């Protein structure tokens, strides 16, 4: 892999970091979410207990997936819900298109589903003459701007209100120069109401699928999933196999943590349970694997499927906040994006877009050990001989060098002397990217080994 490609995380981040004031603004916006999350979590005495239960319940479900998926399907059928299985994104898209084609659907309204993004469903349907309207405001903004999402909960977090104003002026005919969020949101409301009322079908993602009821749960703040699914007669829901939970009690645990951890709200405005189609309607659920069973075969990667997509790990991540969602080469950015996307990353650089600070694991509502998973990805890349450019050439040398006591002691002595007598400007180039935003360290008088021998030996 050439270093000149802009797909390497560090290079994409560097481009994002050129506009320093925007980076600060981006970082602050996300940190505000993290602070709200802390307040919401702190307001519930049993927060840590909920995290523990959430984690154990998800692990239990993941280790009994076949039983719960079977139970879920059987109960769906009893509720007159049609269930489909897709092993990958291509099959998912094919199934969706078949259903829509059968009903001669021309326009479908969609509520945010990262899974359909993962499957690249929109372009697939559009190529087949079906208009796909994303209805979450953030999603609609980036759809009109022809961009992918840069965050899993606030997909247009990278855009400024003036940019949204310009976009809406061009696409929706709002006043030129208008950038007031209330004015723009009202314009989007009017525009999207027309879409809801004229759509032939609706599609949503699934936050939880309840096995013993045969019901799917969809959470939104805007009400877009419900305006969508409850108007046209045809409703589709796409879900990963990891979304199933045993019962209503389990769903209640996750409903208590999801919104609190995402935006600091006590619960999303709407948490809707669909246990069958409306009168005279049709309801389909598409259950998708797309690499999830592969992850389950690895003890450490498997835990990433406990994730409930609250986005809390993105908001707290110091790397994500200062490198933006587009630097990760995957639909899902940030820590969870690395956990579930690093194996698809051709540049092999994404697993290194992390300081292993562990803040993500600390805030995760289901205790996904994200830093451990990311570290594991680095090992997997090394074992597969796929270290990113640079690391593959110098890391083995570093290994040999560190393993030789003489070489290490000798060069460390040289480094201490050099740091003392040579000017920083001469030494700094040797520190590479490390020294770019750091001062060189003050050299100690002796090696640790010498100090230890003298004082403790």
């Amino acid at each position, binding site marked *: 892999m050439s270093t000149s490609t802009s797909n390497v995380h560090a290079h994409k981040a560097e481009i994002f970091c050129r506009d320093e004031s925007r980076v600060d603004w981006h970082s602050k916006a996300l940190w505000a979410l993290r602070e709200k999350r802390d307040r919401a979590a702190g307001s519930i005495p049993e927060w840590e207990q909920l995290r523990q239960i959430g984690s154990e319940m998800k692990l239990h479900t993941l280790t009994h997936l076949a039983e719960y998926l079977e139970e879920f399907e059987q109960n769906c059928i009893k509720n007159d819900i049609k269930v489909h299985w897709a*092993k990958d994104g291509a099959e998912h898209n094919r199934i969706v298109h078949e259903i829509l084609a059968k009903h001669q659907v021309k326009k479908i309204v969609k509520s945010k589903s990262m899974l359909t993004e993962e499957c690249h469903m929109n372009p697939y349907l559009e190529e087949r003459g079906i208009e796909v309207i994303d209805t979450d405001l953030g999603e609609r*903004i980036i759809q009109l701007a022809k961009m992918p999402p840069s965050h899993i909960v606030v997909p247009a977090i990278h855009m400024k209100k003036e940019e*949204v104003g310009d976009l809406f002026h061009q696409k929706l005919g709002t006043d030129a120069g208008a950038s007031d969020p209330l004015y723009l949101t009202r314009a989007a409301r009017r525009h999207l109401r027309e879409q809801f009322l004229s759509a032939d079908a609706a599609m949503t993602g699934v936050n939880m699928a309840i096995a013993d009821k045969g019901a799917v749960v969809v959470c939104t*703040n805007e*009400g877009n999933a419900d305006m969508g699914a*409850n108007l046209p007669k045809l409703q589709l829901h796409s879900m990963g196999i990891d979304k199933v939970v045993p019962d209503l009690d389990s769903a209640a645990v996750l409903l208590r943590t999801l919104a609190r951890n995402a935006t600091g709200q*006590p619960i999303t405005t*709407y948490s809707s349970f669909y246990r*069958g189609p409306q009168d005279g309607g049709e309801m389909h659920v598409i259950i998708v694997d797309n690499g999830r069973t592969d992850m389950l075969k690895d003890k450490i990667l498997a835990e990433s499927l406990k994730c409930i997509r609250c986005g809390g790990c993105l908001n707290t991540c110091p790397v994500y906040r200062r490198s933006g969602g587009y630097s990760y080469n995957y639909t899902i950015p940030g820590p969870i994006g690395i956990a579930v996307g690093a194996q698809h990353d051709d540049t092999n650089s994404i697993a290194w877009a992390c300081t292993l600070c562990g803040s993500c694991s600390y805030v995760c509502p289901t205790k996904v050990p994200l830093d451990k998973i990311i570290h594991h990805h680095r090992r997997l890349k090394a074992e597969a001989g796929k270290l990113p450019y640079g690391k593959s050439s110098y890391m083995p040398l570093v290994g040999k060098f560190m393993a030789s006591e003489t070489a290490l002691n000798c060069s460390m002595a040289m480094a201490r002397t050099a740091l003392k007598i040579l000017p920083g400007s001469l030494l700094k180039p040797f520190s590479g990217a490390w020294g770019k935003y750091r001062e060189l360290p003050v050299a100690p008088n002796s090696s640790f080994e010498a100090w230890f021998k003298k004082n403790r030996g």
Partner: protein
Amino acid sequence: MSSKLEIFNALKSVAITPQPMPCFNIAPRIDDLVGQFEASLTTVAGTLHRDGGLTNLQATVDEHIAQGMQVISMVDGIKGNREVTATAHELRDIDYAVIPGDVGVAENGAIWVNNKNLGHRVTPFICENLLLVIEAKSIVANMHQAANLITLASGEFGTYIAGPSKTADIEQALVVGAHGACSLNVYLT
């Protein structure tokens, strides 16, 4: 081989050792449920009307009707000026919908609504403003207690509603009134 079978075969090699289901023994906070509920409802931008019950609500509805608003009521004893329409789409001009809630949740201000009482499923979302009615004795402490009380029979739809619809997708500025109702007033009976 069908995709379902392929997925199930792959699931035979899950690497994690099977884990038991944990116990959910979380102590509910049962002091002043209505007060807790009111505080939570306020944080999600809803308003609670503690006193006056249905009489108060009917007076409000009458006022709206006098101002030329379209009001549909799904609550016994409250009279609006619109009936349930033949199609869901015809509800597009409803200004106020009056709907009964089954269970209120003190910890988050959410109210469980079941489609048996909605006419069309879209009623609480398509209306410009929502008026929910809830009995004080139906307010429970938390979501675990609510999970035991909500009803969702085969073929039904139900939803927890916590406040009016909202979004913060444009520069994190909170705007109340996205696609669903722009305001929520809850009347206690």
